[in-house]
């Protein structure tokens, strides 16, 4: 039976995550109470919550993100769709180019949460720096309009857009690996040196801006 792409996208974008959230809430009942999203093996604290209106999919707790994200999760056409035609299907864009190591498990229809069962953040197998951040966002269901406007010009979003999900700078600094001898989110050079886009780029390889002067060598996502 062939399922039309759009329907499949709707399925993954809505039903799959609803199921995941249900499963997660059964397996990790306390995990949805706090900031953690409750994804096994994931230690971040993005606010991923079930929508209050009873709809399906992932939306943000904040008002500013709700409208865009929930529409995106319904798989609407145009730029509101996910970056992947099928979640985790690399060949959607990369065609025949090998982008995964030989012998890698099949990734088609795999959300980031499942990637992280092996690729644990902050561990040697971490995905930090191994694929563009827009891919990671897409793998948790956040496509173009999660950050950009629906129509051109698609400008670089304000930092507030990032912080909506990722927390304040103070929260980020507190979450940063304490074993590092310098905190990239708490630079002595002040808030201008904690602008997200100084280091973290979505559509090309991120750059450790601190490394233009220091030897810190952060493994940044």
């Amino acid at each position, binding site marked *: 039976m062939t399922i039309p792409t759009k329907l499949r996208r709707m399925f993954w974008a809505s039903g799959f995550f609803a199921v995941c959230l249900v499963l997660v809430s059964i397996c990790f009942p306390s995990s949805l109470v706090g900031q953690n999203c409750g994804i096994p093996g994931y230690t971040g604290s993005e606010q991923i919550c079930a929508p209050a209106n009873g709809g399906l999919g992932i939306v943000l707790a904040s008002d500013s993100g709700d409208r865009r994200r929930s529409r995106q999760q319904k798989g609407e056409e145009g730029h509101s769709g996910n970056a992947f035609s099928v979640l985790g299907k690399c060949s959607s864009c990369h065609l025949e180019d090998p982008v995964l190591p030989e012998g890698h498990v099949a990734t088609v229809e795999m959300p980031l949460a499942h990637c992280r069962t092996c690729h644990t953040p902050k561990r040697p197998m971490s995905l930090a720096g191994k694929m563009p951040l827009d891919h990671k966002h897409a793998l948790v269901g956040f496509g173009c309009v999660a950050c950009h406007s629906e129509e051109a010009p698609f400008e670089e979003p304000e930092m507030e857009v990032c912080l909506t999900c990722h927390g304040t700078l103070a929260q980020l600094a507190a979450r940063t690996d304490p074993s590092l001898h310098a905190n990239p989110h708490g630079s002595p050079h002040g808030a201008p040196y904690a602008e997200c*886009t100084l280091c973290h780029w979505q559509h090309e390889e991120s750059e450790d801006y601190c490394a233009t002067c220091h030897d810190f060598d952060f493994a940044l996502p």
Partner: protein
Amino acid sequence: MKSKYMGRKARLTRREMLGTGALAGVSVALAGAVEAAPRAGIPDSWDEEVDVVVVGTGFAGLAAAIEAAKAGASVALLEKMRTPGGNSIISGGVIAAAGSPMQAEEGIEDSVDSLYDDMMKAGLHLNHPKLARIVAEKSVETVQWTIDELGVEYRGLTHMGGHAVPRSYSLSAGSGSGIIVPQLNKLKEMGVEPRTRTLLKHLIRDAEGRVVGVQIHEKFKHPNMDSGKPKTIRARKAVVMATGGFGSDPDFRMLQDPRLGGDLDTTNHPGATSEALREAMNIGCVLIQPSWIQLGPWTSPDERGFGYAPHFVQGVSASFGLWIDTLTGKRFVNELADRKTRADAILAAGNKCIAMSDAEGYAKGSAGRPTDTLDKMKANGVLMEYATLEDMAAAHDIPLEALQATIDTFNQSVDAGVDSDMKRYFPNNVGKIGTAPYYVVRLSPKIHHCMGGCGINEKAQALDVVTGDPIPGLYVAGEASGGVHGASRLGSCAYADCLTFGRIAGQNAAAEAG
């Protein structure tokens, strides 16, 4: 993952720095048809008009923007990098003020003349006297301005090399961000925000010789000089150029001083390149004293850039420890001499010198600093700790007997209250050396400050290379200008220079007829 750095590792080629020619959207008057250095003509129509264009967002640029906006001028504030602040925001956090309230509290006598004399002496009297005197005269007023108008916080006084007495206010923030961030906040209140990733491509001078606007590239991506989208902005009143020095530009450095090539490390941020100065020369500014490029004597070969080393080398060792030539076991310079004297001495000694202190000296020199600084310096490999003097001597191949004799002499000097060896200034709490453990940072000078730049007058107006007169509509302030510091700048005098002349430039720019 090893990220691709876009900093010093991506050297600009000469071709990139010079640009490749005229850009679309601007009619070009080719003076003498020299294609490699085209002057931008006046566009048929401007994309935007403001009263004052300020280029650069270090201390000088932000001070100019604040003063211009305060005077009621509309301001376009341009920054080519992704983040504002230039070298200022990553700098060491000290500003000189002669005869200040904090000195009065500590019973330190000081005067404008004393600061001026120190600046002239370090500058080998190549300083332009009127400019140097303005910085000295306004030093207290400038610090007070940062406190009263910006809410800047200071933690105490520091004694910087080459100054007769402790007179440098130290920022509580520990870095230049302690002034830059309040400056940015002030500007935001006034409705002015820096336009990052906006490159100054051309200064536009009209037939009468007046600078009437700029051609810029928006969405510029350092260091690709052709990146971004051209746009023109008319400056109804004036342009303020506060584009900094060229410490991160090995090609231009070597044009001025062939010894300072690409292998030398620098404390500067990667955007400290020469293209704005080249454009200033291109439209007729006169570059003065560009060969005087300062090496900071307090940096380490065991880390890149400014790093942690100066906290120990200047903050601790220069006042409470010793600098030792490892070949002889002897001191080789007054540890509180000016930067040029010390950097030259390190190089003359074969670049194999160390800065050291004992445990008590460390405690005194690091008072008020975050307590984890010591651990960070050790973890980073820049600071080494030894349980005994013998271990320290062995690790650095220092003749022990000579080293011990040097320390004995120093301790006798402490008892006598006068440094018999180097005539170094002793603070009240200077102590004898002898409490383990011992700390060491290896020394290796790095490129730090460009004393030369555009020639200016006391109003911060740029001077014309042909006539020597001010170029109407163009002001230059901060490291992009030359003359204040002569051959060598004293520590903490850049803050005073940049903020003072930045304010002067902004006030005068806003006062021009629009």
